[in-house]
Structure formats: C-alpha cells, structure tokens
C-alpha cells in the first residue's frame, strides 16, 4: 500500500491527497509534524525519508519519491487507466501539462510562500512573493478566459483535466490567506470552482467545497 508522508495544512501534500482520491487509491498516512514541530527538517526525517527535508513524500512498496509535482506524474502514469490525467500518448497535451506543472512550481514559490509567511511566520520577502503571485495569476486568468471562449475548461487543451490543474489549484484557491486578493481574476476563480466539482474532490482546512448547504 502507498504510504504518504503528509501534513494537513500543506498545499503540496493536498495535491497528492486530491489525486489519490480521484483515482480512488487506498493509502496509509504518516503524519509529519511539519509545524510547529519542524519534523521534516530533523535528522531522522532527512536520513530516513527525504534528504532535502520537505514533504510530501510517498513510499509505494519501497519506491520512494519526493516532490509533489513529480509524485503526481508518477501516480497518474502508473494508476490512471484513462491516461488523461497525465496524457502520455498525446505529445501536445503532454507538453502543455509539463508547462503548467512548471507554472505550479511558480505558484508554490509565490502564492503558497505568501501563505506560509502569514500563517507560520516563514521568512519570505512578502511584497516580492505577492507581486510574483499576481504576475502569474494575471497570465493564468487570461489563458483560462480564452479557454472558456473556446468551450474548454482546463489549463491544458482538451476536455479532461490533468494533474496540472491539481498542481495549480490549491495555490490559487488559498492565495487570499497569503494576502493575494483574487478580485481581478474572475476566470481563474471560475476554473477553481470547476476543479472543486471534479469527482473525487476533497476539502482541506482553507478550501471550501463548491456549493453545499442544499
């Protein structure tokens, strides 16, 4: 069974929980006291789990991987029989997926960083990371607006979401915790609402479901 080294408030860990839920894969959670314990930076963790000292990490029957976006690639390639979440058979869509995964590295370093700064006092140059988040969101908002005009719904072309959508999603939807207002990005907000309606969607503290209260 897959073991996931996890922390409830981590956006990057959430991305893995999200895909595991969509693909309906059973897994075992190993709770890491990321904050306040900073367990991931401790000697034991670095020696036994990830020398770079971060989470998420998975252990799939002995195959150990770090890096949220890389883990998404592996899980989709191995377990998604539809081959849509990581479209290996379509070079164009595969390329786009890789491009937007790199974009998600950008949102991790900006929007997500701002959130860690506000929540847990991480020392980031807060104005710079917020400005960086806005730059990226402006680009994504325009990209998604044009997608909508063409009748598409996701970051990557075509009618099926990919792991790129999952990778960008929590950084966008929790950006306001970091002081990055989403008021100017209505297309991005609509896209986030669509992601919330993907079967298998699950919440985390900081992410509300779409609808509810029926």
């Amino acid at each position: 069974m897959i073991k996931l080294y996890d922390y409830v408030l981590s956006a990057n860990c959430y991305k893995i929980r999200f895909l595991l839920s969509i693909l309906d894969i059973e897994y075992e959670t190993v709770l890491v006291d990321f904050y306040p314990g900073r367990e991931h930076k401790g000697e034991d963790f670095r020696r036994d789990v990830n020398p770079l000292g971060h989470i998420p990490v998975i252990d799939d029957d002995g195959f150990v991987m770090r890096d949220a976006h890389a883990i998404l690639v592996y899980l989709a390639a191995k377990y998604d029989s539809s081959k849509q979440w990581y479209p290996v058979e379509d070079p164009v869509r595969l390329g786009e997926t890789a491009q937007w995964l790199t974009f998600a590295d950008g949102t991790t370093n900006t929007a997500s960083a701002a959130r860690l700064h506000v929540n847990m006092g991480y020392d980031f140059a807060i104005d710079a990371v917020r400005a960086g988040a806005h730059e990226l969101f402006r680009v994504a908002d325009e990209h998604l607006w044009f997608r909508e005009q063409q009748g598409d719904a996701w970051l990557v072309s075509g009618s099926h979401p990919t792991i790129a959508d999952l990778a960008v999603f929590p950084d966008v939807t929790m950006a306001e915790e970091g002081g990055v207002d989403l008021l100017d990005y209505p297309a991005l907000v609509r896209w986030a609402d669509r992601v919330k309606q993907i079967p298998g969607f699950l919440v985390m503290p900081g992410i509300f479901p779409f609808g509810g209260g029926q």
Partner: protein
Amino acid sequence: MAVAISTPLDRANAMTRWHPVATEHDVATRSLFRGKLLGHEIVVWRADDGFVNVWENRCLHRGVRLSIGSNTGSELVCRYHAWRYANRSAGCTYIPAHPADSPARTITNKTFPSVQKYGLIWTAHDPHGDVPNIPVLDRTILDDTRGSDDVLGLRNVAVNASVPLVLEHLAQHRFLPSATIGSSSDVGADLAAADMTADVSDYTVTLTATSGHAESTVVFFVQPVDSARSVIRPVLAETASNPTVILRHHAAALARFVRSIESAAAETAAQAPMPAALETPVVLPTVATAVGRSAPLRVTVRRKWETAAGIAAFELVAMDSNTLPTFQPGAHIDVHLSGGIVRQYSITNGPGETDCYRIAVKRDPASKGGSVALHDDIHEGDELQISEPRNSFPLRRNMPHTVLIAGGIGATPLIAMAQALDKNRLNFDLHYFVSNADELAFSELLTSFGERFHSHIGLSPDKTGEQVTALLSAPAATHQVYACGPPPMLDAIRSIADQQGWPGDAVHFEYFENTNEIDQASTFSIDLARSGLTLDVPSGSSILDVLRSNDVPIVSSCEQGACGTCAATVLEGEPLHQDVYLNPSERAAGHTILTCVSRSTGGRLVLDL
C-alpha cells in the same frame, strides 16, 4: 468631451448612475461572483429562475462575506452558520441553530437592482434613470439576422486608475477593424494603419477604427471600482464568426494600453480610497411602527385557475415590480376583501419561488363571503390588498423524517413544506385525505413527489382514524408530524398521536378555524402609561405583537430576545424575563423588559410607552 486628468470622480453623482459590475459569463450556473462598485463590495449571483441578484457582500449575522457561501439555485447559504437567504427578496429563510423558528423579517440583506444588457450585469446604488442605451450596440442586436449571440463581449481588464483618467486615455486607444485583422491576430501590427474616432462620455468611450472599407466600433464601458481603480468592459458592435482572433487582438491591444494608463496614474496625486463599506459595522435594520393587522401590500392577480374541484388557485405578484417579502414554509397571508372581510391563506410556494405568492381558496358556500368573493368577483389582472406573510406554523427543517397529514384544503401549508423538505433532501411523506379524487389541489406538483405522495380518497372518519393510526404507529426521535385540516380531524390526530406515544413537541397542528378557548391563565394585561391604553396579551402573543396590532410605536430587530432593540421601561409589575440580552442586575432591577419574548409574572405590567 475631454476630462482633466486630475478631476476626481464625482462619487455622489456616480451613485445615481447604472454601472456594469460583471459579465453574463461571470454569473455562470451556481456561482457567486464577488465584485466591487464605488468602494462597496457586492455579491452577484443568478438563481435557477434566471433572476440576477446583486447584494451587499456581507451576511447580517456576523459580517462574513456572502461570496464564500453557496448558491443552491434558489437561495444563498452563508458559509459560517448556513443561514439561508432567498432569491430576490434577500430575506433570511432559515437559521439552522434554531430549526423550528422563522427568522425575523428584518434579517434581509441590502439589495441593489439588476439589469442585464449588452452581455453585462448592471446595477446602481440609487438609480436616477435607466441603464444607458448605446445606439450602435442596439442596432447590432436588431440587425443580427443569424439569431445567434449579438454583440461580442471582449476581455475585461482591471486597471489601477480612476474612471476620469481611464476615459481620458482611452480616447487615444487604437485597434484594427475586424476585417483587417489577419489570422495571427496582428498583435504586433501597426495600429497606426487605422483611423480612429472617439466619442467620450461620463463612463463610456466609443471608438471606431476605419481602414479602407473596413470599420469596427467598440464601446468601452468603464466601471468605477474605487477612487483609483476601474474595470474596462469593452463590447464590440458586431457579430463575429471567428471570434478568437478578434478577441486576442483586442486583449493584447488593451493590455498594452492599460500599462500606459497605470504609469500615468502612478504619476498623479494619490486619491483617497472610497470608504470601504465592509469596514463599517452592519447595523441591523429595525422595524419601526409596523402596521399590525392592516394591509401594507398591494398585489395583482397574475394568474387564476381551477386547481381542483371547487378550489381556485391564485398567483399574486407585487405591483410596481417591488419584491415580495420573504416567507418560510407554513406561512400565510391575510387577504383583504371588500366589506372589511379578511381571510388567511397559506402560501404554497417552494423555496426560491419568490416572484409571486401562490394560494388556493376552497369555495365555501356557507362562508360569510370571503371564499365566494375570491371565486366569483376576483379575476386575473385585479388588484388585491394583502398583509406580509406571517408564520405560526413554522417547519422544523432539521429532522430526517417528516410525516405531513393533510385534510382537504389543509394541504396548502403542507405542500409548501413538502417542497422545502424535497429541496433540502430530507425525507417526508405527504398524506392527503380528500372526499373525492378531483379535490386534490396542485396535482402536477403532487406527482413530482413520486412515492412520497399518498392520496386517501373518500375514507369515512373511522377509516381515516385507522389510516392515521397506521401512519403514526412508530414514533421515533428522528420523526416529526405536521397536520392541517378540519378541527375534528386534527383533534383525532392529536389523540391518536398521544396514544401512540409521540412526544407533544414532535407533533404540530394548524387549525384553519380557531375553535379553542383562549387560555386565560397565561394572559396578562399591559397598561401603557403614555398612550393611556390597556391591552390584553393573550397566551401565544408577545407584548410586541400586541403593541404592533394596536399601532403603538415600538422598534424591533432580531425578535429573539438577543439584541435589545425592542426594550421598554417597566413602571409597575414584575417582568418574566425570557431574553438573553439583559444582565443579572438588569433582570433583578426589573425596570427593563424585552417586549419580543418576555412576559409578566403577575396579571399586569405598566409600561412607559
């Protein structure tokens, strides 16, 4: 008409004008759109019936943004405590912490009017006049012979600059006529290739680009978000067969242009931001001198039809396109007829059906004129006077299972309840007892309840008793019963329920005729020292109710004993405090009473009113 760069926006004037605040696309199914107009945050949402709501973006309870809640298609549910607010009226219809109560009428969000035009949602704070007519856009809509989407909404862009500055600069903006835009959308094309003409007004710049025989006109609407912030909402006055290329051209041209506007804005003196309405506390509206049993509402009969044998249904709509006050399942209205006749009729609407009140009236030849008058003398198009809805039969909306027992026309409040339970995915069974099958009202609606609807036709009183005994044979903590019908039937249900062991508070009755004796033991009187009135407060009525019925001025708000608004001074007598607002010493002193919930320990109170 040039506008000086340093001219600030005339906010007072802006409040009287209509402004676009969203695109039709922004109010996609079941979303909640957060916007801002003149410093006020708003939430814009479309209900399933097509109505577009524009409300202040704040829940009256504790000030949480409504835009993080959810849109059920008929109501907006706040994310914090799941308070529900109705489509159109914005009134609170349900508070889960008190599932058996009807929320006070005052719990109604601040609403703004909405109009859909040119692919945009328009609203205003205090409108004088109408949404602007733009002839070039209107002509495009009329000319469109293909019958598909009329004008083309271009990408909207937010800009950190005031409206006057944006207008001034937009007059210099350039783009190409659609026919000359190449397949690559000519993002780097020489925009000087086209001749531009500009027409600038207070919130709009109309630009026409001409090159040879090709000509395109774009109307740029500019929304004032705040003193140094606007949204440019351009609309192209033509239908486009290949919109992507055109959209990209305009998006690129405008994005470039916006950067130059923002540089200019950065060099001008900073404007003070408009007051952020969210930073001012919500003040709960108060209901002052509400008229008691008189009729404040004028409605028109939009539709009248025979829904069953001897039963006429009416759909009543507000006159002057005002919104009808909020109601909850079980509520009724008073209908005023000539000769001083007033009759109560239950509202049969489901949640979110807030554009009319639907009532059903059984013709009763023995009546003193009410039902006969409605059947014979009132027709479609006629005007009626009615009261606001009142609810003495509120549905508890958190029980997993509800048994609804209807006798004849007593079905009307229960039909409203069934629709509410259905919408909230709570189990129910509706048992409708009639003498003949043709007496079942609203039969299409009944069919929609599927297996949860049960009709019982032509049963004798004994057989009815047997049937009810069977229905009530298994009392459970997760079950509740609501019954409405002729008094003998209700009395029988009451005793059967008692015998079967149902707890008293799980079984609810509405008597359409009041044949009970008033319980004198819990009646007391109030002497009003200033108005010189002596009034009786019967059991089941609050002091506030009695004051209102007698046109005594008194303000109220939560009507739950929590906010203190309805306080009155006690001059004599000992209050029986039932509120949660007064502190222990105030209670002990006995000089203040909250009239919405508190009563008297003795037979009389003297109040300073």
